Each structure stands twice: as C-alpha cells, then as structure tokens.
C-alpha cells in the first residue's frame, strides 16, 4: 500500500544505494551524538539530505524524520507533524499536547511544550529526530518553540537540522556549552577522492586524474555540480574537450551543466522533466495526468528511469510510488519552463488540481488551484468543506483557505462569510460576528428564490449563530433567536438543531418544558455526532450533564461527562477544547459531591486554569465556587474564602442574569459555615423581604441562604425560615438538588423548635432524595447540626457515607446562638431514634444499657441501681430481645449504631 501524501513527510527519503559513501563525515556525525543538536547548514545542492539519509542507514539508533515545507509555518501544524513523526516510534507520545495545540495562540511555550518534554523524557531508547529543510521555517513562534525544546532536551533525544541557512536558534549558546555539532559547506564538498569515487560510479573511467582535479576545482566540490558534470560526461563523446570548455568558462555552473544534461535527454524525458517540475510531490498517475498522453511509456516507468539515471529525483517511500525532485533541480527546471512557455504553468497547475480533487486530496487541490490562478475553482473546492473543517477543529486549514480568497470575493459568498463568523465565534475570547453575518444575510436576501432550501438553511445557520453568541453571553435574546432559527431550519436540519441546543443550554434553567428539553438534548447529541460536530456534541453533553445533576441524577451526569471526554478524545484532530474546561469543572463538582476531595481539587485547579486561558467566565466562576467548598471541607478556611473572593471579583464582568446573586448566596453560606455571624446577618438584612408574588425574582440559592441564616439565629428565626422554605418547595418539584436542600433546612428548623416528629420526617425525606440521587456533600454542607440527627437513622451504606463526610472540622462553632437549642433537641431526637426499634426500651432498661455499655457486671449494675441481680438479668433478656442481639458485646455495638445513648 503506497503511503499517503501526509505520511511521505515522515518517511526517511530512500535514495538508491549510496553513490559515494562518506565515512569521514559519518565518523564526524557519530563523534558528536552526545551533543543536543547536529546542524547541517550549507547551500542548496550540497548533499545535506543525502548525507543524513546515508548516515542513518549505518546507524543502529532509531530515527524519526520530518520533511518540512513552506506550509508548515504555523506553530500548531508544525507541532502536530512533529508529534505525528514521533508517534511512529512511540504511539502514546504527545497525547496531552495535541489537544493543547488549539490553544497555541494563547498558551505560553512552557504550557504547550512541557507535557511533550515530559513524554520525551520517557523514551526508552535513544532517538534521532531529523528536521529536513528547516530554512523554509520563518515563523518566530516555531523558532521560539524549538529553542525551548533544545534548552530542555532529554538526553535520549538527538536533534538533526538540515538547512540552507543558519537557523535563528541559540547556536552560540549551544556551541559554547559543547552541545552543538556542525557540518558545513566546506565539510560537504567532495574531496578529490570522493570525486573519483563518483565518477567511477558513473563508469567514467576514462576521465584522467588531472581532469578530475579540474572539475573539482571548477565546481569547488559542489556535489550537484559534480553530479551534473558526471551526467553530462556520460553522453559526451569528447571528455577532455568538455572539461576544457567547462573549466574555461565563467558561466554559472548550474546554467552550463543543466543545459548540457537536459539537451542530452530524449524529447520525452525533457518534456517529462519540465512538465512535472511544478509538482512538490509526484507519482505515476499524477504525472500522467499532467502529461496528457505526451509520452511513449507509462509515467511511473519514467520516474524509475530517472531515479536509476541519478537525475536528481528522490523516492519518498519504499514502494517507489511517490517521488520528488531535488529542490534545486526543480527550481532550474521551473525556470526553464517559465522561459519556454509561461502560459503552460497555469494550465499544469490546473490539471494537478483536478487530479488531486479526484483523489480527494483537498488541500493539495486547493493549493494547485491557487497557483493556477483559478480563484473560482478555489472557492468551489473550499466552500462545501470549510464549515466541516471548522467543526472538526481544523482551524488552521480554514483560516488558510480564507486567506487565499481575496476579501472582495469573500464578501460575495455567504458560506465563506458564515465560515468567518464561525472562526471568530471560536476565538478566545470570541470576536465580532455581526458584520459578516449581516453581509451574508444581505446577499441571501437578494436571492432569486428566497424559498430555496439551501438559502433557508443558510439563513437558519446565520440566526443560529446569533443565538449561539447570545447564549454564550447569557442574553435572554438567545431564546427568541433560537426559536427563530429552528423555525427557519425545519425539523430535518440536525446541524442547526445541535447549534441551538448549544445556544439554549448556555442559558438559565428556569423553564418548564422538561421533557421536551430532555428530548432536544438527546437529538442534539446524536445530530452533532452524526454530522461530526465535535464541539457542539461536547458542549451539549456538558449542559445535559448539568441538567441531570440538578435533577438528582448524578450517575447520569457522570456518564455524560465521561462520554463527552471520550468522544472528543476519539476524534482524529482531538480538538475538544471549548468544552474540556467545563467538563473538568463539571467532574470536579461530581467528585466533590461524592466527597472525593483530592480529585475534585486537582480537577478544579486544571479546569480553572484552562477556563482562565479561554476566558470562559462562567466556568471560572463555577470552578472557584466549587473550589471554595472543597477547601472548606478540607478545613482550609482561608483558602476557601480566597477562592470565593476570586469568584466575587469576576461578578462585575458577568452579564448573565442571576450571577451576582449566585455568588453572594454562596458567600453567605460560607460565612455561616465559618461562623462569621455578623457578616451573614448583614447580608441577610440586605435581602429585603419579598412578597409571595415576587418570590421568583430572587435567586433560589439566595432564599436557601436566607433560610439557613434565619435558622441559625435560633427559634425566633425559624418561623420565617419555614415560611420561606414552604414557598420554595412549591416551585421546586423538578429540582432534586433544591428539594434536598429545602428538606435539610427544614430538619434544622424543626429541630430548633423541638418538633421532633416533623424533623425526623423531613430528615427521612432528605435522605431519601440523597440516597436515590447520590448527593452527599449537598446534604452535609447544610450544616454540621445535622450530624447528631443523622446518627438516629437506621444504618445504611448511604448513611455511613454521610457520617464519614462530616469531619472534625464540622464541629459546630461554639458561639452559634442556637447551638444549645440544637444540642438539647438532639436529645429529643434521640428519643425519636429509640422509637425506631419495634419495641422501645423503657427508661429503666436504658439505664441498665448505659451501664452495660460501660462494661459493668450484673453485680455492679445491681448495686448501682439498687435492684437485685435477678432483676438485672431480666432486664438484660428484655434488652437483648428488643435489640435483636444475643450477647452484651453485640448489644453495645447495636447501641452505638442506633445512637440510642
């Protein structure tokens, strides 16, 4: 199977068996393998690539190759190819770096490359990495990245760079530290001995040593020159005459010799060479397409002939399917072609473009169309593909294509304008899309058939884009726009549907159509996946996950987040990233909920950092709020407040309604948890009481916080709290998370009033929700006062998890005014706990039990209680029976479990 065009970049060029072995140079290269970098810097045609290829063939060490060309001048692409090349020896390499590449514009070199360096440090064997033709690289970002890599290069890796010029890397520094090995033009020049060897290879045995010396001098040992000379001499009848003329002439070597060499070939070959000179890479069928029958034998045969004849052609794979010319040779040929028949060049590029298009090789097709000057064709090729390129995350490709088309032409093409808008929407932070969209809309409005399905679809997409932007900004307008877009798109347009749910889902949750929303999500996900919209799919899943979370299905939320991560990782371009920050923060919330605090912390630190780079405001805020509670749970009060401060600082930038209240409510709860009563009270006072009718205007979390503060004030505050909670519960039937918090606060409220039965009922309701949904910390965070009450409950794994989540840090702060009340009411509830035995223990029995647990013997109990030992034994039988155990030890255990004492 011949290699794909892409794979040829990674393939070590395989010249035919070495023309002239150069052991002195191999030795020189080997001697400095312990250095970081070998630089082979010499002009075109000096034999750099050939030397390295021949050298590698001698080596036992593994090597990885990357042939660079002018298109690789984009850092993202360069690194992608670099990693691609390295993955041929280590498939797992670069997994963390690849997704980061999308952040190449905003990330620092450190952030981008450290994961890659860490991967490289794990290479089990020594490896040589060759960057061939580095002189084509001009992008400062790439030089910077490479300098960074060189600085920290792990010892297993040796870098080889071939270039026509010294690359702008810190060579002096490397040289000074002995980390640089150099092979320069003078090293590469053929010595007389090597010239002799070359000419022997060409079977030019009749050239005298004197002539060889002359040739060597004339060409200054320049390999291409000598090779051309040898080629000329192969067919030259008068060797001495040739050498005489050649040496005597001043003409540029290349000029002189190329002409000679070309003229000696048959017309077929000449035509072939000139025609195919425009190609970067060529294979038989492609050449045939260009020649259009102007040759007497198959193109691939000619290619192999050229290779055999040493006519500066290099095989790019082992099957000898793909080839390229030596750059200098190609340049000369192109020059001649330009001289002979300039108009033909455009036509040839046109044919090449069509051939590549037939093969489905779009990038090359576009490039050749551009060189052919066929802008119309470029647009034709690019338009159908550009949107899906963007949706799959190939931003560099889309940007490059848009750069080829002149702006005046883009202005006339709605699809290209829309593509521009998409790119701007995915920028970090997103740019203005309205100008492009209005322009596109204007053009579509003038369409001859406004009901044309394509026109409608594009108009729908424009509206959907506007909805997406509004959604991301949290503007209520998003809803309206979304509905409009859906109307325009019709039910079959899955693409628009997937964008719409992206728009709608960024929005607030206060809507009633839960079932339809659920269905919309499902549809959106399958639509997005079906159309390959990685970004939309990931985004919708995340919002769907949060929806599940709110509705009490934590397992469902977890599943969706995991799917989201897995799906985006499976994409070839691995571009998950408008979303991964929110996936991590989402996961962190779930981990926190399960009391897996360390994992939550780790995920939050990474997720927040990523969100900050992307300036994803709402994810950052969510992240810091969650982090505050993680810190609080781990007993780090200062850090908790610091995290909350971070969230508060961002509130002014948030346009989404309800954000300031959300953050303030969390702050109030944190104050409560940390015992900052004054602050909490002051905040509560700023929350003016609202009439029933206005209940919906305040953020539900604010109401919950208020209720918690009223309760903390003692029995006096409870009625107000209960009133508030009752109102809240009317509106909360769908929101499991909210119901849980309401019930939990009701527990605390009732226990303040000493209403044990109500408290217990509320507690059971709370735990019921918690158990089915998996909420843990949500319950625990309602207050440590719940702890003693929870111990009254029957033993279940869930209850134990809850108890374990309360830590010593959850000691109820001493100066809480209501503490006394709560604790005394805990006694009431203990009684309530006793009620949970089928037959409760009598007071006397409880007294006996107390002593049993204290390890008193029957004799001691009898003495203490002033009863007979017989009576004690009777009591014991009754106690054991009621507890359902058979001995004292089990009784003690059960007593502890039930919290009877």
């Amino acid at each position: 199977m011949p290699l794909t065009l892409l794979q040829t970049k990674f393939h070590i060029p395989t010249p035919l068996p070495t023309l002239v072995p150069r052991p002195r140079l191999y030795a020189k290269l080997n001697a400095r393998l312990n250095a970081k970098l070998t630089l082979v810097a010499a002009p075109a045609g000096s034999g750099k690539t050939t030397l390295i290829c021949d050298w590698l063939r001698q080596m036992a060490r593994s090597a990885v190759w990357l042939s660079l060309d002018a298109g690789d001048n984009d850092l993202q692409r360069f690194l992608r190819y670099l990693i691609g090349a390295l993955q041929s020896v280590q498939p797992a390499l670069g997994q963390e770096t690849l997704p980061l590449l999308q952040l190449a514009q905003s990330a620092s070199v450190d952030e981008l490359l450290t994961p890659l360096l860490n991967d490289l440090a794990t290479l089990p064997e020594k490896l040589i990495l060759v960057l061939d033709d580095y002189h084509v690289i001009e992008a400062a970002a790439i030089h910077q990245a490479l300098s960074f890599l060189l600085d920290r290069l792990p010892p297993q890796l040796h870098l080889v760079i071939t270039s026509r010029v010294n690359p702008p890397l810190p060579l002096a520094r490397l040289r000074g530290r002995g980390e640089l090995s150099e092979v320069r033009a003078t090293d590469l020049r053929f010595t007389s001995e090597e010239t002799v060897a070359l000419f022997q290879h060409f079977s030019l045995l009749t050239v005298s040593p004197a002539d060889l010396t002359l040739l060597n001098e004339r060409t200054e040992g320049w390999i291409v020159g000598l090779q051309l000379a040898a080629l000329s001499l192969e067919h030259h009848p008068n060797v001495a005459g040739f050498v005489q003329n050649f040496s005597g002439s001043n003409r540029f070597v290349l000029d002189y010799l190329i002409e000679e060499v070309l003229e000696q070939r048959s017309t077929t070959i000449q035509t072939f060479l000139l025609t195919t000179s425009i190609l970067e890479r060529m294979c038989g069928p492609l050449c045939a397409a260009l020649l259009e029958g102007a040759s007497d034998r198959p193109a691939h045969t000619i290619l192999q002939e050229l290779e055999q004849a040493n006519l500066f052609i290099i095989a790019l794979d082992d099957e000898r399917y793909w080839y390229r010319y030596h750059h200098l040779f190609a340049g000369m040929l192109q020059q001649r072609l330009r001289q002979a028949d300039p108009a033909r060049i455009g036509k040839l590029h046109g044919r090449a473009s069509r051939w590549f298009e037939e093969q489905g090789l779009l990038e090359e097709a576009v490039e050749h169309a551009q060189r052919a000057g066929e802008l119309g064709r470029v647009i034709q090729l690019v338009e159908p593909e550009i949107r899906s390129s963007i949706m799959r995350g190939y931003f560099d490709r889309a940007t490059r294509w848009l750069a080829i088309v002149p702006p005046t032409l883009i202005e006339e093409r709605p699809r290209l304008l829309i593509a521009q808008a998409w790119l701007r929407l995915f920028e970090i932070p997103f740019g203005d899309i309205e100008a492009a969209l209005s322009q596109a809309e204007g053009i579509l409005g003038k369409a001859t058939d406004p009901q044309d399905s394509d026109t409608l679809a594009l108009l729908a997409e424009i509206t959907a884009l506007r909805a997406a932007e509004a959604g991301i900004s949290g503007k209520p307008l998003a809803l309206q726009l979304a509905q409009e877009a859906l109307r325009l798109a019709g039910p079959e347009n899955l693409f628009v549907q997937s964008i719409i749910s992206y728009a709608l889902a960024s929005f607030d949750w206060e809507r009633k159509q839960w079932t339809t929303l659920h269905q919309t999500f499902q549809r959106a996900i399958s639509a997005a996946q079906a159309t390959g919209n990685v970004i939309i799919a990931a985004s919708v899943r995340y919002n769907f996950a949060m929806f599940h979370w709110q509705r009490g299905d934590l397992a469902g939320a977890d599943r969706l987040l995991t799917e989201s991560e897995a799906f985006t990782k499976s994409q070839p371009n691995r571009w998950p990233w408008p979303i991964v920050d929110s996936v991590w923060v989402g996961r962190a919330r779930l981990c926190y909920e399960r009391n897996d605090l360390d994992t939550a912390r780790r995920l939050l630190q990474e997720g927040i950092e990523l969100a900050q780079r992307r300036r994803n405001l709402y994810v950052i805020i969510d992240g810091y709020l969650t982090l505050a509670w993680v810190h609080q749970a781990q007993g780090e009060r200062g850090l908790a407040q610091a995290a909350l401060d971070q969230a508060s600082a961002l509130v002014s930038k948030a346009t989404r309604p309800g954000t300031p209240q959300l953050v303030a409510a969390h702050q109030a709860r944190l104050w409560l948890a940390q015992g900052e009563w004054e602050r909490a009270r002051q905040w509560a006072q700023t929350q003016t009481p609202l009439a029933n009718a206005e209940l919906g205007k305040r953020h539900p979390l604010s109401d919950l916080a208020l209720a918690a503060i009223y309760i903390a004030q003692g029995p006096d505050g409870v009625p107000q709290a209960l009133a508030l909670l009752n109102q809240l519960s009317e509106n909360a039937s769908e929101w499991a998370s909210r119901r849980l918090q309401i019930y939990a606060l009701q527990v605390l409220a009732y226990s303040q009033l000493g209403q044990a039965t109500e408290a217990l009922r509320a507690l059971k309701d709370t735990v019921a929700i918690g158990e089915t949904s998996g909420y843990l910390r949500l319950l625990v965070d309602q207050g440590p006062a719940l702890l003693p009450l929870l111990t009254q409950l029957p033993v279940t794994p869930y209850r134990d998890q809850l108890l374990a989540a309360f830590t010593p840090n959850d000691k109820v702060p001493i100066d809480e005014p209501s503490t006394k009340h709560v604790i005394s009411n805990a006694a009431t509830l203990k009684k309530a706990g006793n009620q949970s035995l089928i037959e409760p223990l009598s007071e006397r029995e409880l007294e006996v039990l107390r002593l049993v647990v204290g390890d008193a013997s029957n004799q001691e109990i009898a003495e203490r209680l002033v009863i007979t030992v017989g009576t004690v034994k009777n009591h014991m039988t009754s106690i054991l029976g009621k507890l359902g155990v058979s001995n004292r030890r089990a009784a003690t255990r059960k007593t502890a479990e039930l919290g009877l004492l």
Partner: protein
Amino acid sequence: MGTPTIYRIRIKEQLAALWAEWFDPLIIQHEANGGTTLLGPLRDQAELFGMLSKVNNLNLTLIAVEKIETSEVAKGHPS
C-alpha cells in the same frame, strides 16, 4: 507607500541572461571580473531579503549588498 530604494547585489558567479525574470525587477549586469551584479529598486527590507534568499537558493555566492544613492544611479545605470 515610500519610494523604493535602489540596491546593488554582487555575486561571484556569472549568471545567464535567462535569469532576468527570476530576479525581476533587478537587472543582470556582467562584471569584468567574471561576477554578476543585480541592480534595481526594491520596496522594502522584506523584498530585499526575499531576493537574497533567491541568491542563496541557487547556491550563488554573495559578495556584497549596497544601497545606492540616487545620484550614483543616474551616473551608473546603463538603461
């Protein structure tokens, strides 16, 4: 747009006239010593370095690059 600057680029080798188009807008002059001078207007540094890159890509040997004052051009330019 500023006025272009005239540059003179001297190379060691003797270039055939057919390279004129390759080095456009510079013209090719053969020197008595066997070298070649490329002479002409370049708009900016980017164009200059682009031209030097072409010299490098052909493996020609660069001897000198000079900026020419207009008075000198009036004297020396063979058009």
